[in-house]
C-alpha cells in the first residue's frame, strides 16, 4: 500500500485525503456493488503526477481506481473492487486544452464536464455529440471512455466516436498516445505543423483507443482526450412523433437515420419523457405521463451555413412521405411537451437534481445494444419481469437510442427506486440480475458490463474475455488498475 506521504510528495498535501467522510463518499455508489473503502484519495493536477502515482502503485502493489466524474456515480466502476485502493480522482484536471473549429476537434482533460465544455466549443461554432442529459458532474472524458451512446447517431460513424485520440499511462506507468497523437513528435511538435490529434487509428496496426474505451480504467489512466465535434447548426427544427405502438416509430427512426436527415434522434417512453420534464412529483409527473403517448420519437433537423431553410424543407418533405406511409404524424408538441423544449434540454447536461433521481432518489439502469428486430421481445420480457416483481411496467423508464448510423440501437431500462426503502432496493437489485439474464437469452448484447452482473455477462463470451485477459496482463501486469472491474 502507498503511504500517504509519498503521494503528498507527488501532488502536494492538499491533494491527498484520507478523512473518513471523504473515503466513505468513494466507498459506495448508487449501484449494488459491495461498498469497499479506499485507503485514500489523491487528486493529481498534471499528467506527470498521474504517471508517478502509477509507478508508485506498481512498486507497492497498490490498486488504483481512476475517477473523472463527480458524484453521484452509478455503475460501480469507481468503487474499489478490493481493499487498500487509492482513488485517483482526476476531476480537478479541468483544462480545455484547445478547441479547433477548422478540424472540428477539441482536447480536454478528464475533469472537464459537459457543462464546462459546451460553452467553450459553442464559442468556436462547434457542438458536442452528447449522451442523453448527462448529470452535471459527468466528465466528458469519462462518458467517452465508457462508450456512452450519443444522441446524434448520424455523426457516430463508429462506436468509438466521438473519441479521437487519448493521452494516457498504461498500468505499467508507460506513457502512450493513441491515434494521430502518437507521433511523430510530441503533441506540441504536432501542433507546430498543424497536427490536431484528430485521426483515431494507429499507431501501427492497432486501434489503441478501442482498448481503453469500455475498460473502466483497468488498462491505464487517461489524462486527456481529443474528441471530434460537430458544427453548430444555424437553424434547427425539432419534431416529435407519438405512438402507442413502438413499431412505426422504429421504422421511421431507421429511415431517418439511413437517409441521414436527422441530427438528434431517440425514442423515450412516457415514463422517461415525463421524468425529463416534470418539476413536481408525484402529481405533475403523473399528469404529464398520462398525457403522453406510450412512445415518443424525438428528432431534430438542422441546417448549416448554406441555405439552411431549404435543406430543412427538403428533409421535411421526405419525412412527410415516410410518416404518411406509416400513418403517424410529426408534430411540434405532444402531450404537454414541446419539441423545442426537448431540444433545448438535450443540448445541455441535466439540470439538478439529475433527472433520473427526481422521482425516487435512485435509479438502476439496465442497458445493452441490440437490433431493432429483437427490441419488442426484449421490452416485452422486461415488462413482464417488472410486473411480476410488483414494480409495475408503467413505472419503468425506457430509452432507445439508435447508434453508429443505424447499426442497431442502445436500449436502456431505468428502474427508479427509493434506495432508503429496503424492499424497493431489493426488488430492483433482483430485477437487475434477472432482467439481464433474460435479456441475454433474447439477444441483448451487454457491451458495457458493470457491477454485479459483470461476471454473468463475461461468461457468455469466454473466448473474447480470454483474449482481453492477455491484454490486461500486458498493460497492467501487476493488476493494479481497478482490479475486479470490467470482467477482470
Amino acid at each position, binding site marked *: 500500500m502507498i503511504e500517504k506521504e509519498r503521494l503528498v510528495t507527488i501532488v502536494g498535501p492538499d491533494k491527498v485525503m484520507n478523512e473518513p467522510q471523504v473515503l466513505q463518499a468513494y466507498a459506495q455508489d448508487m449501484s449494488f456493488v459491495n461498498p469497499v473503502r479506499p485507503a485514500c484519495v489523491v487528486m493529481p493536477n498534471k499528467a506527470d503526477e498521474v504517471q508517478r502515482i502509477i509507478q508508485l502503485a506498481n512498486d507497492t502493489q497498490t490498486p488504483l481506481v481512476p475517477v473523472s466524474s463527480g458524484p453521484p456515480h452509478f455503475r460501480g466502476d469507481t468503487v474499489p473492487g478490493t481493499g487498500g485502493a487509492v482513488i485517483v480522482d482526476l476531476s480537478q484536471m479541468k483544462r480545455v486544452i484547445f478547441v479547433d473549429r477548422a478540424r472540428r476537434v477539441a482536447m480536454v482533460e478528464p475533469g472537464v464536464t459537459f457543462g464546462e465544455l459546451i460553452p467553450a466549443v459553442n464559442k468556436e461554432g462547434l457542438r458536442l455529440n452528447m449522451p442523453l442529459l448527462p448529470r452535471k458532474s459527468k466528465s466528458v472524458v469519462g462518458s467517452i471512455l465508457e462508450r456512452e451512446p450519443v444522441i446524434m447517431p448520424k455523426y457516430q*460513424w463508429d*462506436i*468509438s466516436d466521438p473519441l479521437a485520440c487519448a493521452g494516457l499511462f498504461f498500468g505499467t506507468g508507460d506513457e*502512450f498516445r493513441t491515434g*494521430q497523437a*502518437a*507521433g*511523430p513528435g510530441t503533441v506540441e511538435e*504536432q501542433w*507546430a*505543423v498543424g*497536427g*490536431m490529434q*484528430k*485521426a483515431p487509428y*494507429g*499507431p*501501427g*496496426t*492497432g*486501434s489503441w483507443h*478501442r*482498448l*481503453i*474505451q*469500455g*475498460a473502466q480504467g483497468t*488498462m491505464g489512466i487517461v489524462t486527456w482526450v481529443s474528441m*471530434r465535434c460537430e458544427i453548430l447548426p444555424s437553424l434547427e427544427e425539432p419534431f416529435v412523433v407519438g405512438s402507442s405502438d413502438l413499431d412505426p416509430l422504429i421504422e421511421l427512426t*431507421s429511415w431517418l437515420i439511413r437517409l*441521414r436527415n436527422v441530427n438528434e434522434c431517440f425514442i423515450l417512453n412516457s415514463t422517461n419523457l415525463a421524468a425529463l420534464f416534470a418539476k413536481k412529483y408525484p402529481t405533475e409527473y403523473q399528469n404529464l405521463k398520462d398525457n403522453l403517448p406510450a412512445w415518443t420519437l424525438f428528432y431534430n433537423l438542422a441546417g448549416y451555413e*448554406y*441555405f439552411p431553410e431549404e435543406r430543412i424543407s*427538403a428533409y421535411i*418533405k*421526405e419525412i412527410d412521405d415516410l410518416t404518411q406511409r406509416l400513418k403517424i404524424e410529426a408534430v411540434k408538441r405532444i402531450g404537454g411537451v414541446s419539441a423545442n423544449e426537448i431540444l433545448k434540454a438535450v443540448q445541455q447536461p441535466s439540470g439538478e437534481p439529475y433527472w433520473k433521481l427526481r422521482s425516487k432518489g435512485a435509479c438502476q439502469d439496465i442497458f445493452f445494444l441490440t*437490433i431493432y428486430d*429483437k427490441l419488442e421481445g426484449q421490452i416485452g420480457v422486461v415488462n413482464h419481469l417488472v410486473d411480476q416483481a410488483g414494480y409495475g411496467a408503467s413505472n419503468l423508464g425506457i430509452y432507445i437510442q439508435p447508434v*453508429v*448510423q*443505424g*447499426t*442497431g440501437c442502445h436500449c436502456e431500462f431505468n428502474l427508479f427506486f427509493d434506495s432508503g426503502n429496503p424492499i424497493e432496493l431489493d426488488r430492483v437489485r433482483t430485477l437487475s440480475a434477472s432482467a439481464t439474464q433474460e435479456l*441475454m437469452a433474447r*439477444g*441483448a*448484447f*451487454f*457491451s458495457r*458490463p458493470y457491477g454485479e452482473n459483470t461476471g454473468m455477462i463475461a461468461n*457468455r463470451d469466454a*473466448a*473474447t474475455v480470454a*483474449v*482481453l485477459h*492477455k*491484454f490486461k496482463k500486458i*498493460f497492467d501486469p501487476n493488476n493494479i488498475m481497478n482490479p475486479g472491474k*470490467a*470482467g477482470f
Partner: protein
Amino acid sequence: MALTKEIYSVFEDVVGPESICADPVIMPSYFGKNFAAVILPKDTKQVQAVVRLCNKYKLKFRPICTGWKGTFPENIILLDLRRMNRIIEINEKNMYAVVEPYVISAQLQAELMKRGFHLNVKGAGTNTAAMLRGHGHLDQSTSGDDRNHLAIEWVTPEGDIVRSGSLGSTDEWFSGDGPGPSLRSILTSAVPPGSTPGVFTKGAVKIYHWPGPSRLPVQGVSPNITLSEIPPNFMARYYSFPSLEKMMQAEFKIGESEIAFELMGFNIAMVASNMTVSNEEDEEVFRRLEKESQGLGFFIIIAGNCAADFEYKKKVLRHIINETGGKSLESIEKDPRTEGILLTNCIRISASIRETFRSGGMFASIPSMGQRDLTVRWAVGAGKAKRSLIEKGLVVDDGGAFFGWGVEHGHLGKTEIFCRYDPLKPGAEEAVQKWKAEQQKRASDEHYFAMLWGPEDEIGKGLCDYQSWWSKIRKAIDPNGVALEAGSLV
C-alpha cells in the same frame, strides 16, 4: 523447405487433395515465393484445423484474399481463402452485411444496390475483398479504414475461434466491441501495412443508403463502357481551382455541408486515365485536360435521396464553387458519356487500375490517412520532389500531382502521392524508391505523419514505441510465432 509427406498428408486430410498444392510450378502465380504449400480452406472449421496444425508443426502461415501484389517470406503456408466466398447475411434494417473473405466488393455492392444499399469500396478495387480495411473513393459518405467493421469472426494464431462483440455473446453481427474493452483494438485488418495476425473468416461491415437505381444502367462493349443515362438525382463533375488553398477550402466546405456522395481528389492525370481506354489516348487527353484545368481539383458525385434533396445539394455546390473560384471541367459537364464513364468507374470499380498500373506497369505510392490538411501540406513538398524525376524521364508525367479526399464529410482524410513508372527502365526503380524513402522520412522528421513501411523499431520509435506493445500482444496471441503480418495487399 518442402513439407514432409506426413505433414502434407495431414493438411490434405483437412482440406482434401484438390485444395492443397506444394508443387513449385504454381508458386510464380503466388508472388513467386517458394511456399511450403498453398492451402484453400473452405470454411472456418478448416481454417481452424489448418492453423492448429501450423502451430503443431511450427509452420508460419499467412492468409490472402484476392491477392494483388505482395511480399512474403519463403517456406510459409499460404492460406488462399478463395473458397470462402459466401455472403452470410444482409441485414437491411440494422444496416450491415456479413461476408466471408473472398466476397469481392463488386458482388456485395451489386447485391446491396438491389436492396437500396451500398458499401464503402476500397481503392484497391471492387475486385478485392469486401471486408478489407482501407480507403476508397466513397469515403466521403461511407467512412474508411477500420471504421466500417462491426463484428468479426477471427481464428487466432493459436487456432481458437474468437467472435468479437455481439457475435460472441448473441450470435448477431451488429457490434464488434465488447464486452468491455474492444478486440477491434487489434482486429483491424486482414492485410498490411497494419494487419491482425490470424485469419478473419467472416466479417460484418456497415452498409449505407444507396439513392440510385437497383442497377446502374451500364451499356457498351468493353472497354467503351458508360451509362445509357445518368441516373436520376445524380451528377458528377470535376472542378479545378486557382490554388491549392482554394481547393482545400472548397473541399472542407463541401464536407461540412454534407452534400457529397463522393469526393475524390483526383488529379487531372487520373481523370484522363479513367476516361480513356489506352495509354496513347490517356496522354493525349491528359494534355487537353491540363489546358482546361486551372490547377488542382477534385471529382465529386452528388446524389440526392429525392429531387428536392438533389436540387438543394446542387445549389450548395454551385455556391461553394463560386465562392472558391472553382471551374468545372467541360469535358465532363458537357459530355454525359464521360460523366457516365466516371460515375461507373468511381462507384462500381473504384477506378484504380487504369489510373495506377496501366501506364507504366508499376506505381509506388505513399499514402497517408488522417488529418487531411496536414497531409496535404506534406504532399506539396513530395510533389515538388517528384518533378525532378519527371524531368529526368524516370516516371510518368502527371504534373507532380498528388491526390486525396475527405473522409466522413471531411472529419478525416486521405492523401496519397504516387509515381507511375516502368520498373524495367534503367534507374527508374532506384530513383522512385529513393524519392519514396526521402519523402517518408521528411513526413516523419517534420511531424506530419509516421512512416507506414519499414523496420518496426524505427517506425515505432517516434510513435510512443507502439511496436513494443504490439510485439507483446503478438507474443501473447501467437506464442508459437506462426502468424505472419507481412503479406499481400489484399
